[in-house]
């Protein structure tokens, strides 16, 4: 479960003055569901997810992730999340197995438990072929699989995806989409940010349209269609963002 309460983030900027990247954002993501954060570049999606992953500290408000407060218990939050974005790269000089194992160890796993979990993940994701190959020698698809294994090694209850398919080819993007669906099927809480409408339509149980750091609309796709009187998500999005009636 993820629950944000008036989550606010202001970045200091010498030229522009304080920049309100996230403004009083409140929403709730349920376990076993995919919550989509839809917005254009610079809308505040990454800031919101970085706050939930405790990579950043909020200026105001707070959030609970997997039952832990992001301000008071950041380490416990991180112990219960899997964070995947195109910015979370791999250590090129480590092999796929070493990379996943390193993060398993940082999550407190060791010995037989870590080996067992590693083997199971590599079998499931079909990674045994490149298990001992260095990450900088892997294809984009292989790298994405290693990143997925890295986020899953500790079997987190909450998964945070920040535009995970950006820049990926169709086949690799499909692997990621399958993985997100699989997380939902396993009852994990999933929050997913993107600006690709088709992905939201395919995946999300609930959608929040974010713009200028604020949540402008929230609900299921059907609820948004009913409220806007439009069918196409892109039309709905443009109507909400541009503030047209």
């Amino acid at each position: 479960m993820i629950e944000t309460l008036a989550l606010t983030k202001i970045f200091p900027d010498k030229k522009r003055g304080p920049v309100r990247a996230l403004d009083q954002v409140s929403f709730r993501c349920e376990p076993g569901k995919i919550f989509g954060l839809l917005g254009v570049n610079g809308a505040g999606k990454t800031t919101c997810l970085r706050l939930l992953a405790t990579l950043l500290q909020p200026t105001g408000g707070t959030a609970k992730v997997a039952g832990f407060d992001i301000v008071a218990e950041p380490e416990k939050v991180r112990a219960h999340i899997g964070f995947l974005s195109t910015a979370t790269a791999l250590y090129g000089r480590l092999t796929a197995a070493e990379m996943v194992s390193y993060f398993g160890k940082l999550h407190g796993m060791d010995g037989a438990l870590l080996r067992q979990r590693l083997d199971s993940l590599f079998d499931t994701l079909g990674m045994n072929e490149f298990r001992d190959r260095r990450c900088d020698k892997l294809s984009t698809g292989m790298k994405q699989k290693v990143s997925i294994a890295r986020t899953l090694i500790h079997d987190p209850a909450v998964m945070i995806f920040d535009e995970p398919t950006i820049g990926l080819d169709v086949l690799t993007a499909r692997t990621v989409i399958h993985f997100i669906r699989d997380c939902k099927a396993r009852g994990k809480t999933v929050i997913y940010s993107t600006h690709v409408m088709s992905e939201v339509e395919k995946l999300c149980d609930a959608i929040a349209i974010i713009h200028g750091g604020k949540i402008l609309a929230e609900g299921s796709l059907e609820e948004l269609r009913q409220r806007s009187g439009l069918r196409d998500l892109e039309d709905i999005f443009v109507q909400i963002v541009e503030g047209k009636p």
Partner: protein
Amino acid sequence: MNLRNIRIVYAKELLDLLRDRRTIISMVVVPIILMPAIMISVATISARSVGQARQEIPKVMVIGGKDSPDTLHGLESLKTLQLVPASADYTNLISDKKIRAAVEIPSGFEQDVRLERPPKVRIYIYEGEMKSMFAAEAIEQFFRNRKDAVVSNRLAAARLPTSTLNPFDISRANVAPPQKVSGNIVGMILPYLVIIMCMTGSIYPSIDLTAGEKERGTIETLLTSPANRTHLVLGKCLIVMTMSLFTALVSLASNGVAISIMNRTLFASSKHSPLMFSVEPSSLLAVAVLMVPLAVFFAALMVAIGLYSRSSKEAQSYLQPMLILTVVPAMAAALPGVELNTRFALIPVLNVSLLSKEVLSGTYHLHYMVLVFASMCVYAAIAIFAAVAAFKRETVLFRT
């Protein structure tokens, strides 16, 4: 303090760095091969060129002296000089290194000497040019001998003993053990080399583990782990410190080997010369111990600077001035007259440089050793605090 996480980060970073060719070059190739090779080459080349210069019989021009045949004949009979015919452009010939020196014998030289009207012999040289200096030395020696002969004759004529002009002798006697003498020379060079290697050993890994991680996007991956940020940065500082210390110690050992090679080859003929370098193992051990807080200080400082930088290039631009700032105090040991005192013992790098010099020459001032070690520990602690603080600041980690 979770030592397990620090250990995990340390082991991973060690593996990661050892797989990087650039680390091997900066940690192994430079200190083990390149530095001693440069040292031996420079010493060999200089020893060889000094030897060759000594072997050469310099061409010297005599200007004037036709009315002083004895002097002229004396100069001509010298086997250490090759006289060339006089010409008016002797200054150009010296500047063009066609002749090494010229000696001007004033008109009526021998007569003036006889009449006790002291004439002036002038030697023209190329200042700073080794072969010209050797030529001048030979000419001076010739005239000194003649002067001594004239003085002896005059004393004999006046029935005075030679002790009239030389009522007593002055001589120098070295009481310092040979180890201290050679240690003093080694102490001028070695601290500089080891301190610089200690610093350069920390530059590459610190950039790679901080700004490099930012550039490659792995810092964000690392920050998503539940490990406490203090433990993450301590693991990084520890591995940079290991690399720094390893480079410094390897440099210390390889330069030691280089010195012993030079002793056996270049200086083998002059066994009692101060050039026969030898250093007590206990002195080397003391220097190695001194390097520990220095390596921690460099490592944490570099990590803090690397974290602040947006990219490896930016980190390099910050660390280059740091290298220059380190070179100056590191060189202090080689400067004449700069000695360790309480004020200098509190200045980082300078204190290690001066104390290393003392220790290598066999002088152990316990209070300075404690003061330098303690002050370096304090500086190292401040640098660690700065690195930890930088790693906890999101404005530093996500600085774009």
